[in-house]
């Protein structure tokens, strides 16, 4: 990896300048894809779920898919030319841009770019200084799930999760991620302690950061588990070992499919969330096939399949008409800007505050990781 040689101001440097692709040329015959599980299914998980094979048949680009387990491993893998495209989440995309691992994109070459609602374009996690670095893929919020049989009345606030006197002590769950965990607390503090002056949950100065961590530490004894895999979260909700906490829509859907009394809500304070972006490696050896892939996977037909398989809002709202479950886009609020605006999408915290403050230094990502460990260890 590259390093600018110091802890100070690492985030303030500008990304290296690079040229985006002009035109999609002849396919190179191959494309290496680094993706989240479920984003590039080739039928090996379920023979019925396959949109890679048709891509290969159509474009002649042979797709080699590798599944990444964490954002950090994506960050590690990119920038070497081993991969052409990656489905980066907000907590690693910015780091990739600044580290020069991914190249700017020419949005004119994306056939479906126009079909993506504007509120997803040129955001903090997929652009820097007005330069686009990727094509939105899909998004989702960290909702609050609750057992409707236990948690009554239906909650509308994160109070039941963060409140010191929550009646659900011991059965609360948090998503096990430093970025999301601390940001979620900060979102709650934005509403409950406005005097902290938090403007953006990913731009926390030391005081704000400490307050968020303190909140999490006081919450820790009441937490039943920190969930990392969404099937664990689903099981926990179904068997009642957790009754309320951070969740994804897909989890709730799955639990409801099992007839479990589980509901989700976007609390009044707002929530964190993720928005994934297809990005092209700075040293991509197969850029044409890479663009072909992005165009394929963001086309309405494929978007419909991916969104349903994975359980998220598709970036391309044209897909909404094509889902087998007609209400899919409604369930996931794919078209709902108001809903979208209530969500604080993951991004990488840096010492240069993302909210534009220049008088203070914000706590950078490396500290977030350690603090999260500290929280979990009580």
């Amino acid at each position, binding site marked *: 990896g590259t390093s600018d040689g110091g802890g100070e101001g690492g985030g303030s440097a500008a990304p290296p300048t690079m040229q985006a692709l002009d035109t999609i040329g002849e396919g190179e015959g191959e494309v290496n894809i680094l993706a989240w599980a479920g984003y590039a299914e080739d039928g090996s*998980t379920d023979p019925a779920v396959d949109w890679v094979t048709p891509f290969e048949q159509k474009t002649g680009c042979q797709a080699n898919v590798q*599944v990444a*387990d964490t954002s950090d491993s994506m960050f590690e*893998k990119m920038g070497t030319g081993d991969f052409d495209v990656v489905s980066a989440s907000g907590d690693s995309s910015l780091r990739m841009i600044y580290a020069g691992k991914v190249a700017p994109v020419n949005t004119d070459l994306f056939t479906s770019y126009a079909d993506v609602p504007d509120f997803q374009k040129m955001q903090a996690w997929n652009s820097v200084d007005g330069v686009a670095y990727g094509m939105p893929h899909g998004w989702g919020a960290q909702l609050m799930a609750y057992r409707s049989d236990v948690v009554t009345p239906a909650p509308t606030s994160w109070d039941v999760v963060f409140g010191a006197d929550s009646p659900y002590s011991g059965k609360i769950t948090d998503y096990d991620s430093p970025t999301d965990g601390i940001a979620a607390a900060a979102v709650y503090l934005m509403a409950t302690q406005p005097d902290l002056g938090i403007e953006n949950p990913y731009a926390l100065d030391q005081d704000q950061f400490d307050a968020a961590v303190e909140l999490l530490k006081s919450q820790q004894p009441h937490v039943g588990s920190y969930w990392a895999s969404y099937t664990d979260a689903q099981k926990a909700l*179904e*068997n009642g070992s957790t009754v309320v906490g951070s969740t994804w829509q897909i989890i709730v859907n799955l639990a409801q499919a099992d007839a479990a009394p589980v509901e989700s809500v976007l609390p009044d304070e707002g929530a964190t969330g993720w928005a994934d972006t297809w990005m092209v490696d700075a040293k991509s050896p197969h850029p044409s096939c890479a663009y072909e892939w992005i165009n394929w996977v963001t086309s309405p037909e494929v978007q419909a399949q991916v969104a349903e398989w994975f359980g998220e809002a598709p970036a391309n709202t044209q897909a909404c008409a094509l889902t087998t479950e007609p209400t899919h886009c409604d369930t996931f609020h794919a078209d709902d800007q108001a809903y979208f605006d209530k969500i604080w999408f993951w991004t990488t915290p840096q010492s240069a505050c993302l909210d534009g403050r220049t008088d203070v230094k914000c706590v950078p990502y490396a500290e977030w990781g350690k603090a999260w460990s500290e929280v979990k260890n009580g």
Partner: protein
Amino acid sequence: MRGSRRARWTFGAMMALGLAFVYVPLVVIVINSFNASTVFAWPPKDLTTKWWVETAGNPSVRHAVLTSVEVAVVATAVALVLGTLLAFALARYRFFGLQAMSLLVVLPIALPGIVTALAFRTGFRTFLGLELSLWTVAIAHATFCVVIVHNNAVARLRRTGLAPEEASMDLGADGFTTFRLVTFPLLRGAMLAGALLAFGLSFDEIVVTLFTAPPGVTTLPIWIFQNLQRPNQAPTVNVVAAVLVLISVVPIYLSQRVAGESTAGGRI
């Protein structure tokens, strides 16, 4: 005390208890593979063979098994060579550094898995400058499998002693012939037992694999790990697990056969 009935009964009861402790979860796995619901709840409401049928047609399991086999074969082969050489050196010679060497060989397995795993990851990356691949997985596995082969071989070497080899040379066979006709045939059983155990250890290894495998190299444990984190895949995993338990009879039978009187049924 073997004459005391009470003591015999007490130990018998403890054995039964222990076996129950060992087997109840395995039974749960097997039952679960027939559980109609995708989410476990006891007692299961409905039973089905659907998952078995689905798993049988799943190519990714087969691919993962193949990958695991590839890694385990390479790791076992390397461990066999290194472990046997080391066993001869440590069992037959006295030299400076012998103590350190015998400690070093157990270290990869005695240190916590996550430390070994992280050491390999950083070592491969920053020290050796290797890109992670199937080979790095095999190299890492081989390193902690060495001790398994080594222990089995050393035990056998200690038990047989030098006498057969001396007898062979005494009868006119040179060192190479002696190895071919006497040393190796006598050691073969222990090496095979060690190889089986090493294979099993590598086949089931998850932590070191997670840290040394590049994304995309999916061994069976990784496949299981990933599938347990996907919705609706748990039953398939249970089928695979049940099959693993059933198939494990083969290596156990083999290792019992080849290990003969030795107790090396385990991996230790």
